[in-house]
């Protein structure tokens, strides 16, 4: 297991190095001079030069890459061209919205999908299965912004249980912050839950047709015990894969939902920065997201190994 972990860790570092190089190179290739962009058309040549020095644009590419990387490691992501404020502050404020939102949505999605998927698998081909699978089809088909609007209409406008949008800061208490994230998390979770439930169902059905399930039944375990002790853990591999993909997606993919609920999240930050050609912000947020995806994959890889002893041995 230790070997496996170290190996995964090494591949994590290599992925990060490659990803950072690619991102840096892409931004370098992009046309336009940031200093020129910040000062506008009427800028004097000497002020431009001074700003370039201030931004470190006069240094060589390897030097700038190194400065960028070491800066990020120390938490310094540079300064936004547009707002002229440190990017780290902008990102961390957004991250405190997006990360809890993503995790919240993921938890809701798991809480819905696992029981639903397991139920459907045990009732294969029967009425319960058909109804549940029909419902997941529905969940997949509904556009999430429409579902978000329906949630607002019902729970915010009619029932007045939640506010229709905006984010209550964590300083005002965990409960009220979570409450302001509940509707967006639900809206994000629904299609994810539908996918996850389907994956759970088919993974379980695959496992339930395996020979060792018959062995378990021949031992005298009931159907329920067989599912619990021999089915679930073996079905976890495909489910974990999807979970990892979903978490990566939820981190920045909630841009439409953030827009619907006026949430100051990462998705909106990227969108605004791209519109304003604030490339250094795009670069930093992209790097951060890549970092998050790689870390999530690393965690999923470890989870695989915990679930399946064969993976531990193979490395």
């Amino acid at each position, binding site marked *: 297991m230790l070997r496996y972990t170290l190996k995964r860790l090494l591949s994590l570092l290599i992925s990060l190095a490659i990803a950072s190089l690619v991102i840096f190179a892409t931004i370098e290739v992009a046309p336009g001079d940031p200093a020129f962009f910040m000062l506008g058309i009427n800028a004097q040549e000497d002020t431009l030069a001074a700003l370039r020095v201030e931004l470190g644009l006069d240094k060589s590419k390897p030097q700038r890459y190194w400065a960028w990387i070491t800066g990020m490691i120390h938490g310094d992501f540079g300064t936004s061209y547009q707002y002229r404020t440190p990017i780290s502050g902008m990102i961390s404020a957004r991250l405190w919205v997006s990360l809890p939102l993503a995790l919240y949505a993921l938890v809701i999605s798991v809480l819905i999908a696992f029981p639903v998927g397991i139920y459907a698998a045990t009732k294969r081909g029967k009425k319960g299965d058909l109804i549940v699978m029909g419902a997941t089809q529905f969940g997949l088909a509904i556009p999430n912004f429409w579902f978000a609007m329906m949630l607002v209409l019902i729970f915010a406008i009619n029932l007045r249980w939640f506010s229709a949008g905006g984010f209550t800061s964590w300083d005002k208490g965990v409960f009220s912050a979570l409450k302001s994230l509940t509707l967006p998390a639900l809206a994000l979770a629904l299609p994810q839950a539908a996918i996850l439930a389907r994956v759970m169902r088919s993974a379980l059905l695959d496992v339930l047709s395996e020979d060792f399930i018959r062995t378990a039944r021949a031992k005298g375990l009931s159907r329920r015990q067989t599912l619990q002790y*021999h089915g679930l*853990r073996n079905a976890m591999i495909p489910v974990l894969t999807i979970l990892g993909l979903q978490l990566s997606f939820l981190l920045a993919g909630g841009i439409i939902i953030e827009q619907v609920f006026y949430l100051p999240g990462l998705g909106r930050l990227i969108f605004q920065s791209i519109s304003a050609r604030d490339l250094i912000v795009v670069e930093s947020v992209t790097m951060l997201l890549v970092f998050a995806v790689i870390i999530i994959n690393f965690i999923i890889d470890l989870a695989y190994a915990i679930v399946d002893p064969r993976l531990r041995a193979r490395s």
Partner: protein
Amino acid sequence: MSLLQIRNLSLCINRLKILHDISMDISPGEIVAITGESGSGKSMTALATMQLLPEGSKTKGQILINDRDTMLLSETEMCRLRGNTVGMVFQEPMTALNPVQTIGAQVAESVRLHRPDLDPMARAAEVLTRVGLSPELVSLSRFPHTLSGGQRQRVIIAIAIACSPKLLIADEPTTALDVTTQAQILHLLQKLTTEDSMGLMMITHDLAVVTQMADQIIIMKNGHIVEKARPSNLLNTPKHPYTKALIATSAHRATLPRLRQEAPLLRVRNVVQSYALPRRSIFTAPGKVYAVNDVSFDIPKGIRLGLVGESGCGKSTLTRSILGLEPVKSGAITLDGEHVFSAGRPNLAVRRRMQVVFQDPYGSFNPRHRVARLITEPFNLLDKKPTATESMDRIAKSLTSVGLLPSDAQKYPHQFSGGQRQRIAIARAIIIRPDLIIFDEAVSALDVSVRAQILDLITELCRQYNLTYLFISHDLSVVRNITDHVLVMKSGKIVERGSTEEVFSNPQDTYTKSLISAAPQLSKRTYHA
């Protein structure tokens, strides 16, 4: 008094009649073998006894275990019976264990379920020792994937006997195993039956496996019992015509055409194939495992050569090298002087002269392609592909020569039986008129009667097209049947070679001797006929 009494058992699955009026008895200490071809209902009889039938099954009749009718028991009561009074061993040791649990836990689970008075782990260690896996040798905390097939089958037997059942049901327990392992497992089952005076219901498609150990043999066909008899009576005076046919096909021998001595077609010279093991630490060089270690032989034109050995002996690696699928580490493989692997890839000029037929008639076809497309795939090896009419003509010819109809070209593989699919695989091999055909366990998955037909087809084809065969198999009776010369392989080396008749009747190497003595035989009389 009988332990198990089955009375007039009939079974329908989704309105399809599977079993008709089955009756049998098993007493304590008695071994009853049920044999028949696939689809004869033998496994369903076992599953009905366990009440583990697939969904949509309807049963009629009685199954009495210790005079209790199991058909009347509730599912909860059946759960108490399964694994406790009746244990079951399955065919596929590779997949019958949960891959994510330790073997100790899997044996202990059964104890925990039925015998709260025992310490589960201690009992698990005890039964595993009994089946020959003492914890000093094989730790309880090992996972199934670290064990060999034979060891896994022992674990499954340990699970089945963990609660000292009265009746043990073994469904094809040795079919997936090598001959020597098979002999050990059969011996173990026999020993356990005597020591605990258990009843044993042994299901197998191979009559030869059970003639030496069974007290009674039941022959099934299409869901009927056609004959019940003691082994000696059954072999010497079979009553039912089907039994006679079954015994005849089991001992079937194909007649090979006369051998002409000719120049070597394929030359294998000092071939070494090794794989690197994972490094122990970054400072030492990685270890090597030699799958094929300095192997040399020739295949003369027109000969039928057999290659036998147990799983893991390097047969498959050697096959891959001969087919040019991977480069050899050292040595040379040439066909008529041309290397099979050259310039970093398989040599097409050679590849079009040899074809291969694989074991699994179910897995070796793309299910979405029609037969016509499947069998014309070797055309890709030719420089100039045949025209549409030419290829139609060749499809028709090769299908007819394997005993299928030209119209079968438009069908999909799932529309054929296992034996027919193997015919399609052979049609694919002969369509470009190769010189050499490699049969990799090509008849191992087939029923005896189908196997006999395919073997006849293979010999007929070599008469017709002047083919050279390399026949790779772990099944000695098949190799003896169809080859002129034989190579015996063990741990990557060839330990014995010679003419088939000589090697089989007078083996020199100790390993060959043990292989031949472990192979089940129907009886001395039929074997030498």
